[in-house]
C-alpha cells in the first residue's frame, strides 16, 4: 500500500552523522542529506564522532576515509564492534576498487565517490532504507518549478519501488508455481 505524501512528509526525520575533516565536504554532505529529509549532525574527526555516538544514537553515519588521527576504516571497525551500530556509508575521493573493497569489508553498506551527488546518495539510501524513503524536504523559498520537479521525482521513485515490489512478488509466485 502506498503511503500518502502528507503522512510520509510528517514522519519522524531520520538523523544522520557526517564525519569529514573538510568543512566544505561536511556542508555539502549535510545539505544533501537534509534535502533527503535527514536531520544532520557533524563531526570533524573519528574521535569526535565516537564521543557523539556514545551520547546519542543515529540512524545513519556518513564518513570519509582520510581523517586526522583515527581513520574512517578504523572508525567503522570500532562501530561495528558496538551493539546496534547504525548503517554506514563511506564517502571518499579515492576512485578505485581497492578502497571501496576495504570500506565494504570494514562494514560500510555503500561506497560513494566524491563529489557527492544528490542522486547517488538517494540511490544508496534507497538500498539501505527501502521502505522509508521520504520526499525531499523543500524549503519554503524554493521556486514552484523546483517544488514541482522534486514532487515528480519523488512520485517516480515511489512508482519504481512499487514496481520492484510487484516484480519480486510475481517472480516469487512463479518460482512457487514451478516448484
Amino acid at each position, binding site marked *: 500500500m502506498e503511503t500518502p505524501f502528507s503522512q510520509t512528509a510528517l514522519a519522524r526525520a531520520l538523523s544522520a552523522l557526517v564525519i569529514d575533516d573538510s568543512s566544505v*565536504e561536511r556542508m555539502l554532505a549535510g545539505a544533501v542529506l537534509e534535502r533527503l529529509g535527514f536531520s544532520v549532525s557533524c563531526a570533524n574527526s573519528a574521535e569526535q564522532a565516537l564521543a557523539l555516538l556514545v551520547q546519542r544514537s543515529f540512524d545513519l553515519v556518513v564518513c570519509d576515509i582520510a581523517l586526522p588521527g583515527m581513520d574512517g576504516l578504523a572508525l567503522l571497525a570500532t562501530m561495528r564492534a558496538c551493539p546496534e551500530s547504525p548503517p554506514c556509508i563511506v564517502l571518499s575521493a579515492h576512485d578505485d576498487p581497492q578502497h571501496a573493497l576495504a570500506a565494504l569489508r570494514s562494514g560500510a553498506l555503500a561506497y560513494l565517490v566524491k563529489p557527492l551527488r544528490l542522486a547517488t546518495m538517494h540511490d544508496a539510501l534507497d538500498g539501505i532504507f527501502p521502505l522509508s524513503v521520504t520526499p525531499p524536504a523543500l524549503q519554503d523559498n524554493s521556486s514552484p518549478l523546483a517544488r514541482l520537479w522534486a514532487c515528480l521525482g519523488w512520485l517516480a521513485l515511489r512508482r519504481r519501488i512499487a514496481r520492484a515490489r510487484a516484480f519480486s512478488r510475481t517472480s516469487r509466485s512463479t518460482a512457487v508455481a514451478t516448484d
Partner: protein
Amino acid sequence: MGKQMRSEEPYVFSRGSFCVPAAAPRRILIADDSPVNCLVAQRLLHELGYRADIAATGAHAMARHREHPYDLILMDSQMAGMHGFDATARIRATEVGRRVPIIACTTASSDEQRSACLAAEMDDVCVKPLHAAQLRDLLLLWLPPRTPEELGRRDADTRAELRSLATLFGSGFNEVVLMFRADTETRLQALREAAEAGNLALVRKVAHALGGSCASMGGWRMAGLYRILELRCHAGSCANYPQILAEVAEEYAAFNVQAERVLNSWRMASPNEHPAPGRY
C-alpha cells in the same frame, strides 16, 4: 620567476593564445587491444565532443603518432604484442620538444601499479571501466582550452555546477564559498610548507584533501592538478611541485572569478534563477 619556470615542462598547461581564430579539432588516440574497450572510449569521447582514432597494438599506435602527432593518447597498459609501457618508452625516445600527454588506462588500481605507470613516463592513470565524468576531468586537465570559445564553455560549465550547488544550499551558499576559500588557503599553505620540507607523505595527504573539496565545488581542473601531485608524490618525487602549484594558483584565481559571478547573480536574482534539478 613563475613565467620562466613554465617553459617546456610537462605540467605546464598554458591557456593558449587568444588570437587563434578557430580551434583545430583535438586529435586523440585510443590504443587498446580490446575492440569493445576502444568503441566504448570512442563513444564516450564523442559524447564529450571529441573525435578519436583507434590503434589496436602498441606498434600501430606508435606508427600513427609518428605520422601525425596526437594531442592526447589513452594507452592500455597491458596490450598484446607491444606492451603499453614499451610503446610509451619508444614514443618518448623519439619525442623532441612538445611532450604528448599519455594516459595509462588500466584495470590495476593499487598505488604501486599507478606508480609503475608514472615510472614508465606516462603522465596520468585512469582506472577502467571508463566513465564520462572521469574522461571529462582528464580532458579538462590535459587538453586545456586554447580559444576564447573553449575557455568560455569551460567557464560556463563551472558556473552551471556552482549554480546547482547554490540551488542545493539556498541562502547558505555564500557561506560555503567563503568556507571553501578559507579552507583552501589554509591547506595550500600547509601543502607549500610540507613540500619545502620534503615531507612527501604529508604533501600527498594534504593534496588528497584539497582535491576532494575542489571536486565537490566544481573546480575539476584544480582537483586534477592535486591528483597529479598526489600520484607524483607516491612515485617518489615532487620535484616539479612549484610548477603544479603555480598552475593551481592560476586555476584558483579563474575559479574565484566564476564563483564571484555566480554569487552576484544569486544574490541579485535568486527567485528568478532557474534551478538545475538534473544535477542536484
